[in-house]
């Protein structure tokens, strides 16, 4: 009896494995959806931890300093130490705060930041679900986080957080419009193919780029590029990062909306900020940079190149492993550093094993999409850090000016231009030519 139940379960799971070409959610089964949710949540947490360390290190090296070096080899365990510190900290709530709202605010921000990943396509079959209104869902949910920020600022019952919250909401309102216009022009591009049907599904948008043989950033040059630029600026503003980090402007508002937060609640805001960064970067990658598609699909075609590109994930991880080993050799030869040296070598071995595993063709075929997607998102993450190291902070009114007077008209122009490019033969045949003939007849 027990054996047959086991068989049934195995059959149940296998039945879902057979629905090839469909994402777990679209296949309509609960089991794989849950598995993917766990995977995405885990991956996201690891990404935030990695991002925390990378930001400190990259920023430090931009600023002629070393960054964390003490906790673990090259400070690799610093984010973990920080997490432990934050969890063990006393939970402080200001006496005058509205306790329920104060308690809810970080939860809303975190929920908004994580829920977005429901529709992010890491690959043609690697997504929790494939909604036919994916991009709308994503924009809608990701802008919910401002609600949490306003709640946090209001509930703190303190001047600086209140101002931070107000700034944040004004900023969000003015940038969301330009962002929306840029997104609409990208969606418009999906419909400008032979059969003329567009899509709002995140997976569909990438597949449209695949079918049309062009990433939308290069489509109707330079229209796609401008739309991408608008989105890139707006997404930095949307996530409250430098140079648009007015809501938490340290030198002005001490810490902005989360001034009164500490410990675990603060760490939730931190988590939300970084996952929101990853989320909007994923939108940008999906809409303009071909999502999971590998680079140079038109230039370097053929099975040989496919094979060559499938080695890149493995090579990347082997490169990381080699970096670890190089630094292991460079570690000080003092007994105090023995554990750190062993740790770094161990980390290198793990990375190397992952790299070797990625050379197995079955694995690399399945993982490739996720790798390219993550690599593109990582590029955006680097951009975020670079901005932070380079730019001073915009002032409130300048930021609004930029949103309404520069980005919004640009977005409208791109939208009209994209539409015009899509209908150019119709415009030519039905407007320009008749008008020319009419002029000609007058002559």
């Amino acid at each position, binding site marked *: 009896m027990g054996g047959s139940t086991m068989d049934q379960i195995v059959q149940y799971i296998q039945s879902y494995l057979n629905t090839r070409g469909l994402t777990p959610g679209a296949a309509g089964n609960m089991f794989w959806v849950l598995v993917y949710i766990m995977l995405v949540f885990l991956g996201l947490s690891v990404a935030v931890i990695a991002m925390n360390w990378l930001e400190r290190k990259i920023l430090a090296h931009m600023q002629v300093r070393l960054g964390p070096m003490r906790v673990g080899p090259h400070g690799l365990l610093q984010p973990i130490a920080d997490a432990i510190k934050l969890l063990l900290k006393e939970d402080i709530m200001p006496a005058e705060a509205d306790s329920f709202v104060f308690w809810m605010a970080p939860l809303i921000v975190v929920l908004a930041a994580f829920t977005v990943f429901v529709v992010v396509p890491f690959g043609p079959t690697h997504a929790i679900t494939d909604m036919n209104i994916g991009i709308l869902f994503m924009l809608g949910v990701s802008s919910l986080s401002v609600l949490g920020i306003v709640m946090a600022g209001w509930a703190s019952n303190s001047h600086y957080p209140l*101002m931070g919250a107000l700034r944040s909401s004004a900023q969000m309102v003015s940038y969301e419009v330009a962002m929306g216009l840029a997104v609409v022009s990208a969606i418009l591009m999906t419909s400008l193919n032979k059969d003329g049907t567009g899509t709002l599904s995140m997976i569909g948008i990438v597949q449209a780029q695949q079918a049309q043989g062009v990433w939308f950033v290069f489509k109707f040059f330079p229209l796609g590029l401008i739309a991408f630029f608008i989105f890139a600026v707006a997404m930095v503003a949307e996530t409250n990062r430098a140079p648009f980090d007015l809501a938490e402007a340290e030198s002005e508002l001490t810490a902005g909306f989360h001034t009164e937060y500490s410990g675990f609640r603060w760490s939730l805001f931190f988590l939300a900020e970084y996952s929101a960064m990853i989320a909007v970067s994923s939108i940008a990658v999906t809409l303009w940079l071909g999502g999971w598609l590998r680079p140079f699909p038109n230039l370097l075609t053929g099975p040989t190149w496919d094979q060559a590109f499938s080695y890149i994930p493995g090579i990347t991880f082997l490169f990381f492993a080699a970096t670890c080993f190089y630094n292991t050799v460079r570690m000080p030869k003092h007994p105090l550093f023995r554990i750190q040296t062993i740790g770094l070598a161990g980390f290198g071995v793990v990375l190397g094993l992952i790299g070797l595993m990625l050379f197995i063709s079955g694995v690399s075929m399945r993982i490739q999409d996720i790798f390219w997607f993550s690599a593109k998102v990582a590029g955006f993450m680097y951009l975020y850090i670079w901005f932070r190291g*380079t730019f001073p*902070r915009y002032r409130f009114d300048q930021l609004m000016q930029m949103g309404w007077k520069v980005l919004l008209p640009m977005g409208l122009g791109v939208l009209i231009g994209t539409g015009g490019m899509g209908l150019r033969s119709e415009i030519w045949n039905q407007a320009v030519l008749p008008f020319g003939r009419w002029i000609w007849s007058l002559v």
Partner: protein
Amino acid sequence: MTDPNTTLSHLDLADLATHEKPFLDANELVINMGPQHPATHGVLRVILRLDGEKVLGLECVIGYLHRGVEKIGEHRTYTMFNPYVDRMDYVAAVSNGLGYCETVEKLLHVEAPPRAQHVRVILTELNRIASHQLWLGTHALDIGAITPLFYTFRDREEILKIYEKYCGARLTTHAFRIGGLQYETYTGFEKEVKTFLNFFRPKIDEYEELLTTNRIWVERTKNVGAISAEDCIALGVTGPVLRASGVKWDLRKAQPYANYKNFDFGIPTGQNGDTYDRYLVRMAEMRQSVRIIEQAVDALPEGPIMAKVPKVMKPPVGEVYHSIEAPKGELGYFIVSDGSTQPYRVRVRPPSFVNLQALDLMCRGELVADVIAVIGTLDIVLGEVDR
């Protein structure tokens, strides 16, 4: 102890409290910025009256770092008081020492020998560079550019190393003595200073590369906190702030002290008196300081480093005011002697304190973010404001 708020008459705080508020009240927001705040450069407390983000008025509350330096001066001999002045503007300790030593020398009618004068000029100008570097780093940090801070501190370190080698201290150096110098320069001093100058010249370009044409930086500083030359003079504002408003007033040229008249250097001035001009003026001043140091090192004469001064200093009865061009403006000392070993009265005219008075005028009608920028551009050091 009285509540400091009660003294803030023009803010009408008491009125705000008793005012009967409507259900949706649109009152002004009174925000207390400091004394613990990331951007008030120490323990400055600014009470802002805001309409949304717009500043309607502000009041500075100072005194959180008051140590009674002037009073201490009355209870120490002339030589004993010398190290205390380093603690006022602690980022430009050498300038403070120069001002004090020269004032007492004026009182004693002695003059430091030429070699001492030269070394004093070298160290003071190095100090001007160090002070401006610290200003640049923190000012940029306040406006949100975090990277220049590390660049300037990296280069400031080289100056501090020279100080450390010369007198053993890095920050509060006590480098000069009344009548000259205590220490002869160390071996290789000239070479090291020259190495620093060659190292530093491209670094100024590096700072400028990061900021001068940076669109956001220009937007954040142009036409922000502008102050006219008339207002500057009426308020007694001096230093780079005054020069950025277009007044060519530099005590090194106007009332030459030490031996500045031997050196060829320019006085950079601005036109608009805004934050951007003050930034440009200070950047140009660093270049001019490099020029002065170069000339001073090249022409460093041999000779004694100490004038003949009595072991127990008893200046003749009288009073003297002497001022120098410190990195932040006119630093003046007014010393009254009653013929004893201790001054009867020491009064310091600190540039930061006087310049800070312009804050209200410069910030009115600007936004909160500009207050930070203006505090940064005034380049105040609270040790000097409160003394």
